[in-house]
């Protein structure tokens, strides 16, 4: 068995070629091998959601993905979403509502909230809480996080209604 596995993938639109150890998970690959430290390694066993990133357009737990398995994949992180400006409204709402306290959960919260807003946009607080239920905030700032997501959902839904 080879000690390292060659992977070619894109990360935030840029092509990356690396030889990775099989035991490297996606978050350590991003943070240590690529220097993208926006994605956080929290519990590292799939519970806390701080490591949420996108693989091929869908959110995943970065700590439960083998970097070695990602040959040909497209990965997007909080850095990519921030630079593209696609979640600037959400980020502004987080700032306005003080929805980031210590900030450790924030990148994962933003990735998961963006998934809800992009794919199943709703301002229903129960639905927002359900979608975010796999992301822990140990400052327990859930109220303002849900407030921020709800506000952006309302803005986006009314912008959509206005455009139609």
């Amino acid at each position, binding site marked *: 068995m080879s000690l390292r596995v060659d992977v070619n993938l894109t990360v935030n639109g840029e092509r990356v070629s690396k030889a990775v150890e099989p035991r490297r998970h996606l978050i350590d690959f991003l943070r240590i091998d690529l220097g993208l430290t926006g994605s956080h390694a929290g519990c590292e066993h799939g519970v806390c959601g701080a490591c949420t990133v996108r693989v091929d357009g*869908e959110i*995943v737990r970065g*700590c439960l993905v083998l970097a070695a398995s990602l040959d040909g994949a497209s990965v997007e992180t909080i850095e990519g979403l921030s630079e593209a400006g696609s979640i600037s409204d959400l980020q502004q709402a987080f700032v306005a509502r003080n929805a980031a306290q210590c900030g450790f959960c924030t990148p994962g919260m933003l990735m998961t909230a963006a998934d809800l807003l992009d794919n199943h946009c709703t301002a229903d607080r129960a639905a927002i809480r359900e979608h975010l239920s796999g992301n822990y905030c140990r400052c327990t700032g859930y109220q303002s996080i849900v407030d921020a997501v709800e506000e952006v959902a309302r803005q986006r839904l009314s912008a959509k209604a206005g455009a139609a």
Partner: protein
Amino acid sequence: MKWPAFGYVRASTLDEFWNLKAEAGPDAKIIAGGQSLLATLAFRLSQPSVLIDISRLSELKGITFDGKVLRLGALTRHVELERSEAVAAHAPLLRMAAPLIAHPAIRNRGTIGGSLAFADPASELPACLIALDATIVLASAGGQRRVPAAAFFRGLYETEMGEDEIILCVETTPQLPSQKSSVIEIARRSGDYAMAGIACRIDIEGGAVSAARLVYFGIGEAPVQAKSAAAALAGKPLSEASIAAAQAALSDDLDPPDDLHGPGAMKLHLSRVLTGRALAGFVDDRRAAV
């Protein structure tokens, strides 16, 4: 904790997989979505020599309905159960189960084959497949065999699958107009392992229950089909009285052990509560997966 060191190989065809598996030896483990396996590796619950990645095997993919049988490839992800029109039309119980499984980011990668092979006693899909009387199709290098779901789950993380086998697909017949099904559970937080859950399907003919399959999860080492409770429903219309009789009979079917969530008596109580909710939901169709 970081994962232990292991090797990694990826199979691109089923034929190649059998070769890789033979080469890798008994300490290798198969990885599909990895959503349970990789978490257990973080706890160092096992130290496989090699992970054999089957996630790109097209032979294990796809959801098809041929008019008689709904076939779900083992690599069907939980999110696909939520999205598939064929699943919604022919196996609405599985559509109803999907949102109960973990969280969106995990449902995007976790597979039904992985869930069945892992056989966690609190997982939803094993109980659902028993309620549906579904068949699990196993493949080995020598051929295939078909195992009824009710015979597949043998104990705690223990299944009928041999070391030389892999789950190919799941097959189920479409839900009939005379059938209703439902899955509900109680968990402290959304997406957590269920403290208790029920997956059930009943047939109603001429206003009376002609068959009932009531299956409980999170209450023991494997899913349990409650035959006494089902017998209490048989031949009667669904009513407060017949539902109460089924709830009372459950103590003949279930003997939940004490666990981290609480005493066994509490789990029996929760199972009765869930039975009442699921069956009452069939009286009011809005709460069932019709």
